[in-house]
């Protein structure tokens, strides 16, 4: 089996080494064993791999997780080097709603077991990485997930087979030569290869992965750090109190997460160096393209910065290489450094994947990630999904898909997709009468954590049924796949739909933006569309958008132009339950889209409607007419009469009083009981959308 799988590779030059290894493995006695068959194979027992394993386990699927290390979360056994996670572990929110609280718990994985919440594992707001390791191994153990530890998958290839779910099987070969045949491959290996920049003198550089974390090693030194991400600042934070100074060099300007609203950018917890730089305490930040640089080591063992250009021109004697300061005597980096540290982040390990998988890297901006669709399926081969940090190309620098608090939801979305595709289990949904539409939306925008964290990536979808009398509510659908909604979810979208998304204001966030300008917050509901902070936006489509429409949507829009659009005005407390400020405009929007009345009525008003109109408001149809009307108490009635919204039955009683007391006594001519206008104050002109 292994041999036949390797056969197509013979023709490929440059893979000789792989093949040699493969052959060696093939020839070992272990190879005699037949390949193990699995429906689902998960690579990596990190947070994403375990999260997927959890969903597969709950659904009773045939799966196996492969992990190179002896335990889960091996990345966290080593990284971050200084052990402090910057994912917040907020244990107190003043609320008891578990779903809401997940909005502020960035470390927990999703499970049904409340004991498996990260707050039971650490008290620290920025927890220690070893707590994460402990948490992950508890998660795997307590839930009984099937993980094969100490198993390094050395090679993954494709075996065409028309009988397979996806027309091919994935053949995984581990370091012992054991082969595994998988129908679906879920890659959750994270980013494991440190990014390196190749320039003359790069051999003198200490990597983040191996540099000392003991500040004593840096006492009185001039330190240059390459990179400007959280790892660079974390490294600087650890040593800047004992160094002479730290210079930080990178290609682009610093991106502060509080300005970009992207958690992967520089977090305030690490940015002590920005203080010391701006307060002229010798530390500093510089911008330059690292690929143009060269590092020269002088005879004293100190490092000098020069340009690659100069190196190519000249001889090899280190002290004779021209330096920029020779011509430009105020060159910023003319000082000699004792140490250069590289903190440039990581990239995806493509090396184990055979070319037949056609797993390629993303565009310029997200080169470190494999290329995937918005459904997290590889563009190259069907049935190959990328999960976790490695799937971040979908929302790189936008949302939280590269982090636990984001990908725990995208993993769930992938799992729901797989359940529909291979097991005919339609995307979970609840069906409600249309009168509950506003409530269903209000509930989700106030508690849903997936919408909140994966804003503009995952969105809730409301599918209207015929005549818009009922609707189906689908949670956390990858919104870029909207055109394919019917095939992915197995639900019909023939009668229009709403998409509920969370968005920041356009042009508000960005590395160069002033996010503290004085009129940044919007309080009036008519200005809701100008809201800057994260707020719910509801799109209404009469028809499911096509793939073309999604692809060529207007610039800056997460979705194509809808038939109608509603913004719920941003809220300082992220509590969108105000009756006038939030619920009323939303309900009016829904009413206008659906051309119906979504107000609620007391039984009394329904009764009047029933006598005066042939068609009743949905609330009366679905409640009162089925003997489930809302009666209300006397005190509420009083309020209703005072507000003028409720018919005053006291006066009505007087008018009808005679016949009340003397049943059978009909007034001559009947009493023209005007069809009481509980709605008449609102006969104002309707604004067409």
């Amino acid at each position, binding site marked *: 089996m292994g041999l036949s799988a390797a056969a197509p590779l013979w023709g490929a030059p440059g893979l000789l080494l792989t093949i040699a290894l493969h052959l060696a493995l093939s020839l070992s006695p272990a190879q005699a064993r037949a390949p193990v068959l699995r429906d689902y194979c998960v690579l990596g027992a990190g947070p994403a791999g375990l999260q997927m394993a959890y969903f597969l386990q709950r659904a009773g699927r045939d799966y196996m997780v492969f992990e190179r290390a002896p335990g889960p979360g091996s990345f966290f056994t080593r990284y971050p080097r200084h052990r402090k996670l910057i994912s917040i572990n907020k244990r107190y929110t003043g609320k008891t709603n578990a779903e809401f609280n997940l909005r502020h718990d960035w470390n927990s994985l999703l499970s049904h077991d409340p004991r498996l919440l990260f707050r039971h594992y650490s008290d620290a707001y920025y927890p220690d990485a070893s707590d994460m390791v402990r948490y992950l191994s508890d998660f795997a153990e307590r839930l009984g997930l099937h993980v094969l530890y100490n198993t390094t998958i050395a090679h993954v290839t494709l075996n065409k087979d028309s009988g397979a779910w996806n027309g091919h099987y994935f053949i995984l070969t581990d370091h012992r030569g054991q082969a595994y045949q998988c129908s679906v491959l879920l890659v959750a290996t994270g980013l494991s290869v440190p990014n390196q920049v190749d320039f003359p003198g790069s051999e003198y550089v200490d990597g983040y992965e191996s540099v000392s974390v003991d500040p004593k090693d840096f006492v009185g030194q001039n330190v240059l750090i390459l990179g400007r991400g959280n790892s660079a600042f974390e490294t600087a934070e650890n040593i800047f109190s004992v160094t002479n100074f730290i210079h930080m060099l990178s290609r682009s300007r610093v991106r502060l997460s509080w300005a970009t609203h992207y958690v992967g950018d520089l977090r305030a917890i690490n940015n002590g160096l920005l203080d010391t730089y701006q307060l002229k305490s010798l530390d500093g930040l510089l911008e330059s393209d690292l690929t143009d640089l060269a590092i020269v080591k002088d005879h004293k063992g100190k490092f000098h910065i020069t340009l690659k250009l100069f190196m190519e021109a000249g001889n090899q004697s280190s002290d004779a290489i021209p330096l920029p300061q020779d011509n430009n005597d105020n060159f910023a980096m003319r000082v000699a450094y004792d140490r250069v540290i590289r903190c440039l982040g990581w990239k995806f390990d493509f090396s184990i994947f055979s070319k037949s998988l056609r797993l390629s890297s993303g565009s310029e901006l997200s080169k470190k990630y494999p290329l995937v669709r918005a459904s997290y399926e590889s563009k190259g081969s069907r049935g190959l999904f990328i999960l976790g940090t490695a799937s971040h190309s979908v929302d790189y620098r936008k949302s939280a898909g590269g982090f636990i608090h984001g990908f725990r939801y995208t993993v769930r979305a992938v799992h729901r997709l797989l359940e529909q595709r291979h097991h005919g289990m339609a995307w979970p949904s609840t069906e*409600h009468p249309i009168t509950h539409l506003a409530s269903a939306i209000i509930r989700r925008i106030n508690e849903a954590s997936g919408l909140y964290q994966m804003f503009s990536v995952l969105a809730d979808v409301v599918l209207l049924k015929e005549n818009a009398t009922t609707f189906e509510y689908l949670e956390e659908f990858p919104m870029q796949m909207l055109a394919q909604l019917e095939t992915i979810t197995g639900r019909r979208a023939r009668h229009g739909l709403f998409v509920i998304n969370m968005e920041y204001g356009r042009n508000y966030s960005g590395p160069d933006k002033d996010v503290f300008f004085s*009129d940044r917050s919007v309080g009036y*509901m008519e200005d809701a569309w100008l809201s800057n902070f994260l707020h719910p936006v509801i799109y209404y489509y009469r028809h499911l958008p096509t793939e073309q429409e999604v692809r060529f949507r207007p610039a800056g829009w997460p979705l194509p132009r809808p038939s109608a659009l509603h913004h719920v005005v941003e809220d300082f407390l992220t509590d969108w339950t105000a009756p*006038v400020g939030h619920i009323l405009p939303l309900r009016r929007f829904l*009413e206008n889209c659906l051309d119906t009345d979504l107000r609620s009525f007391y*039984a009394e008003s329904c009764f009047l409607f029933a006598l005066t109109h042939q068609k009743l408001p949905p609330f009366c149809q679905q409640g009162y*007419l089925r003997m489930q*009307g809302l009666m209300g*108490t006397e005190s509420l009635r009083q309020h209703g009469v005072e507000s003028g919204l409720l018919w005053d039955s006291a006066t009505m009683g007087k008018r009808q009083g005679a016949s009340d007391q003397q049943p059978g006594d009909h007034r001559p001519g009947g009493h023209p009981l005007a*069809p009481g206008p509980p709605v008449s104050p609102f006969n104002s002109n309707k604004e067409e959308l």
Partner: protein
Amino acid sequence: MSSSFSVFRAGISFVMMCIFYTSAVDSPELSPQKFFSTLQPGKATLVYFCQPECPRTSVFLEELNEAAKPLQDYGISVAKVNCITEETSRYCGSEKDLMKAYLFRGNIPLREFPTDTLFDVDAIVAHVLFALLFNEVKYITTVGDLQNIENALKGKGNIAFSYVRAIGTPEHRAVMEAAFVYGTTYQFVLTTEIALLQSIGPEDIEYPHLYFFHCKPVLDLTQPCRRILMRQSLTTLNIHQFIKIMEAPLLTEVAGDPRQVSTVHLQLGLPLVFIVGQQATYEADRTTAEWVAWRLLGKAGVLLLLRYFKHGIETQVEFLALSHIDLLVFHVESTMNIEETGKYEDMEELNIDDEVEETVYRDRKRQLPLELTVELTEETFHETVTASDSIVLFYAGWQAVSMAFLQSYIDVAIKLKGTSTMLLARVNCADWSHVCTKQNVTEFPVVKMYKEGQNPVSYTGMLGTEDLLKFIQLNRISCPVNIMSVQEAEEYLNGELYKDLISYSSMSVLGLFSPAMTRAKEEFTEAGSYLKGYVTTGIYSEEDVLRLSSKYTVTLPALLLARHKEGKIESVPLVNVHVQDIVQIITNASLETFVKFNLKQDNLRPSEYIHVMGFYICSSLTLDSTFLAEVLPAQEWKPPLPAYDFLSMMDAAASEHLTRKVPECIKETDMQESDKEQPDDKSAITEESTGTLKMKHLSRSSWFEEAKKVLRHDNKEL
């Protein structure tokens, strides 16, 4: 040369005027004979025959006199003929129809008009022209007629279709006057049927309308003609202008300075839209421009400007760099109706219009005695509902309906205080989302009853104190109750067995079965448990059951319905009935009590009767049948509730924002972009937009004005 010619023409018309003046307007009252001798062949004349005793002045004569002038303009003369007794003419008629006017062409009578149809100048002109232009103006009444005309003219000519409320109105006159001029060029179609207009478009149908159907370009007979609505009111001048615009070429290609371009649109005061294109993208540009032109037909002229890169544009020309054609259309429309856009400001005050929401909101500061019910949490829920029989209300603190019901729920708790073994509990799903989800509660409010060893039961009755109380009380006994003896059955039926429950359930149901009827018993038992909490049901199937069945003269299996208030016992035989049927029988029986309110049953049709019966009557209204008969056929009920239209606010802002005079240096690129409609040409502009946005939400109401101010400010800076 030309000037002398126009002088000559003016002279001619002057002469003609003089002729008309002398011959018709103040024409001396002719005698019939004299009159007929003056008739010229082919010339139309409107004649009023007047009895000798007819008054010299009347409203009609005044109007006729006034109408003479405009009719002359169409070459129609007006005359008044005195019927002298000696000279009899059949047109003079008898005294009865002394008020009649006739229209002649030459000496052939075309039509006669009762004078009351010619009530004013407009009516006179309209009627006369309508009669004369019989061939040019087709009067239709059905959609089919319109369709036929449309089909017949496809590829041949265009149609001017108009709807007027009635013949003889000023609008009708305007249409006829237009038809007089354009009748040979376009097919005029007229209708007074509003249904026809409704079939054409969603426009506000209260007003007269004129549509221009572009049928000539339609070569494929299956394609509909493009229909352009005239937005202005129907006056002769407006129709004339509108038709002029429709006649003008759809798209004009120009090269050179746009300032020197003049089209019919500019003369009629409409804006011109220049779409700047390039030779290289000519085909695409032309398609785009044509598309825009169709969208803007009647609103603005569209021109395709090729290779225009000259500097020094004057102020009258606005350059737009737009990302979407919709924005362009929106911009033109909004500049046309700037006054109308003020409507956004009307939205300033939003009041709650939902009675439940409003009453709960007004009541929000009242402290409810919530302590009477047990609040459950994620930790206590399971323990509580398994430890004792409980009723649980699932609600959401922010949801008005469930908060309104919470009050009733508390009332129930007050009434049951210390008397019930049932625990009243509640879960706020806004706080304990997972508890509710696990109990399969996804909408609010929901009431569930948890009893030991049984599946939880959802309450499906009215959301009110009385009904819930009844549900809880009736749930104390098993349903159906097993009756053990005939004596017990009698006690059950006369209400003594469950005295305390009679106030909650006015009817007791007893199922009678012989011991062998196992299937029927099962069905009844299931129906009973389904109705548990709503009706009291009992079952009796002892050996001596025949004693009861013979007493109530019914064959087994049967139902006995005891109405305690009336003291009546009815019997219903059960024949091959299933669970649903039994439930239906019992539910209907319990509904029948409503008939007692004063409906005159003979006045109601059976369907209406059932219709009324289905309602739960909540107040003590007594209705008489006249009322019902009047009111039931009422119209469909419709909500008229305005909402914010953020999408067009965004469009308006985008269009306002992108409208700017482009600085010379970047003009070229901008223009190219605009004509290619690149979707992301905004990048340069949107960068600056934060400034604008900042300004806008300062002002609550007049954001539109504010945006314009900002824009003006922008322009100054540039």
